């Protein structure tokens, strides 16, 4: 029932956006749909925490990690839709976009949210693949939303690289089906069935399949060296879409990789998938550490930070044990804080009309609240204590110290370099004199509330995890 309500409310919102021209109706329908999705996601999370895996229909199944990601999709989705309303109204007032584009935006946004919910709840690996591919199709036009050459180029790059990646992932997925030879070809094959039949999988095929899956879905996760589309796409999309892309979509793809890791680990030594995750994770952090110092665009800075954080999660899942707990917590914290950062970056863009770091001076004076949100977000995302990301990073590195001390030490050094790079860029934006042409003071409370709500939630969860969330994290960590 919960899932039916989520999908039907989002679908109705899409239809309303398609057929109703009044802007207020379009906005209210989208907001209502995502609010319903939030309530239902909480109910699903409570149910999974209390009774374990929830499978209301053969096509759908939600485990502990799935329930957590559903919560992330709906919380960030809610904030994003709320912020989008104010953001697009401001852009319409500035004649950046017209009314028709607003409807297109909300149609695609609702489709995007629906595809992510489908991908995470789908009980069939191919069904999940179709949903992930659908996220690519829904977001391609959102990335090229401003119809500028750079946005078009970024969207094209995104479409081609992700489509190739997902086809490789599709091939890897199919290879896992060799385990099901004993079954009828038309039988519904769920994730659980693949896991139960893993013993029939040839270990060599399992290894090749996991490599294809890791490269394929890893492209969508943004792991290096398949990350090249991410900084362009995330920096060219409208700020609320960047928040969803960075904070949510990457996690959805990572969960699919983890489900295949589980099957692979049942056939070959877990060290095989762990090493691959550690190598790609470290490579992602290393590449971002090299690039961070030379970045001149704050949205790209945030996009690169997403690559780094996906690398950190990958490291955690690779380290295993305590690292997995840290990685799951990091997933939750990163989603909240990165969305806060992108939403406040949107407000900074609306005020300064530029994404160049060199043109942003006196951010804390010009935008006392949004600027502060951005600055606190930076401190939190880089792992400054006492925020949650500090604890999740500590857990990951501690987990790694037992099994791969050198890798953990290297990761720590790279994270320190990243902090310096990030600090150099953000401090340049935060302080100094406000350019004369830039107005001072916050003008729209609706541009402040959504990122503020996300930050408050992030801070609260940094110090207090509700029992149902703790149960979900523990259950997910024991499973993966």
């Amino acid at each position, binding site marked *: 029932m919960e899932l039916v309500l989520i999908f039907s409310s989002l679908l109705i919102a899409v239809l309303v956006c398609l057929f109703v021209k009044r802007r207020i109706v379009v906005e209210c329908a989208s907001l209502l749909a995502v609010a319903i999705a939030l309530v239902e996601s909480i109910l699903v999370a409570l149910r999974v925490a209390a009774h374990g895996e929830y499978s209301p229909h053969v096509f759908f199944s939600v485990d502990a990690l799935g329930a957590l990601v559903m919560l992330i999709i709906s919380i960030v989705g809610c904030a994003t839709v709320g912020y989008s309303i104010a953001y697009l109204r401001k852009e319409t007032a500035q004649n950046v976009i017209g009314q028709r584009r607003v409807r297109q935006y909300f149609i695609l946004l609702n489709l995007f949210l629906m595809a992510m919910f489908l991908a995470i709840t789908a009980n069939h690996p191919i069904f999940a693949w*179709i949903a992930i591919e659908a996220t690519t199709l829904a977001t391609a036009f959102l990335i*090229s939303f401003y119809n500028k*050459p*750079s946005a078009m180029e970024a969207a094209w790059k995104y*479409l081609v690289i992700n489509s190739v990646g997902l086809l490789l992932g599709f091939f890897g997925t199919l290879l896992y089906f060799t385990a099901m030879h004993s079954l009828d070809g038309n039988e519904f094959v769920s994730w659980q069935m693949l896991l139960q039949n893993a013993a029939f999988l040839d270990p060599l095929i399992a290894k090749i399949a996991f490599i294809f899956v890791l490269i394929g879905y890893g492209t969508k996760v943004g792991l290096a060296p398949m990350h090249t589309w991410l900084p362009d796409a995330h920096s060219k999309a409208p700020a609320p879409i960047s928040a969803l892309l960075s904070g949510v979509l990457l996690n959805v793809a990572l969960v699919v990789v983890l489900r295949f890791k589980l099957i692979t680990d049942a056939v070959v030594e877990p060290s095989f998938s762990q090493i691959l995750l550690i190598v790609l994770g470290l490579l992602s952090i290393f590449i971002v550490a090299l690039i961070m110092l030379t970045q001149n665009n704050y949205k790209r800075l945030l996009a690169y930070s997403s690559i780094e954080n996906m690398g950190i999660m990958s490291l955690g899942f690779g380290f295993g044990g305590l690292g997995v707990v840290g990685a799951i917590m990091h997933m939750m914290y990163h989603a909240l804080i990165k969305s806060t950062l992108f939403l406040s970056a949107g407000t900074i863009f609306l005020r300064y009309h530029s994404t160049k770091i060199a043109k942003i001076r006196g951010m804390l004076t010009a935008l006392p609240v949004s600027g502060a949100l951005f600055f606190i977000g930076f401190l939190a995302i880089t792992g400054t204590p006492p925020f949650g990301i500090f604890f999740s990073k500590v857990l990951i590195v501690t987990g790694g110290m037992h099994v791969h001390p050198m890798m953990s030490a290297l990761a720590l050094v790279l994270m320190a370099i990243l902090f310096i790079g990030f600090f150099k860029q953000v401090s340049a934006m935060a302080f100094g004199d406000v350019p004369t042409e830039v107005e001072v003071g916050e003008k729209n409370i609706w541009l402040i509330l959504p990122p503020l709500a996300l930050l408050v939630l992030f801070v609260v969860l940094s110090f207090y995890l509700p029992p149902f969330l703790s149960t979900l994290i523990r259950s997910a960590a024991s499973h993966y």
Partner: protein
Amino acid sequence: MNHALIQFFVAVVFGTMIFSHLTKKNFGASMAYGVQSLAVAALLFGSFLETQNKLILIVVICALIVKVVMAPLFFSRLIRKHALMFSASTYLNTPLTLIAIAILTFIAHSQKFAAVTGIVPANQALLSLALAAMFLSLFLIVNRKGALSHIIGILSLENSIVVFTIFAGLEQSPALQLGILFNIFIWLMIAQVFISMLYKHFGSLNITSMQSLKG
């Protein structure tokens, strides 16, 4: 279906990939894709003859409509609309391209991939050829500078995977195959819109002319 006929269709899939690499005209590449898709549809029809599952027949008909009729028509329209007759722009010249094709085909037939191509030992040669076609599709995307070639490369990659699944006994249920086909149809529509928008912005479909993200 007759084994020689099956071999012929797989050879057509592989042959059209080589042709796509060598042709200097976009029209040739798009027609090659149409022929390749026809061969894939014929192989799917073979599955229908074996199983007599009417849903597979629907899949075959949908594949024919989307891949054999619509896709080449879309490409032809784009080629005429934007005068994209020639797109021989590649990173490697023809001799080097041929060498790369030979190496990739060799790798697909090598022991490295024996586990994958040996999923159904009786079909090892056909699976190796399908894997080689996959590699050549990827190489087409990497080697060509034209956006249209990238689309053809991606669609050919999907065709090659379909051929692989047929001979590896990994065919999905017709409902899922229809879902995948629907996805491809939407992808094709979106790619077509993007191609037109890219041409409008850059005056060319050569991806090396897209430099607006630099700096």
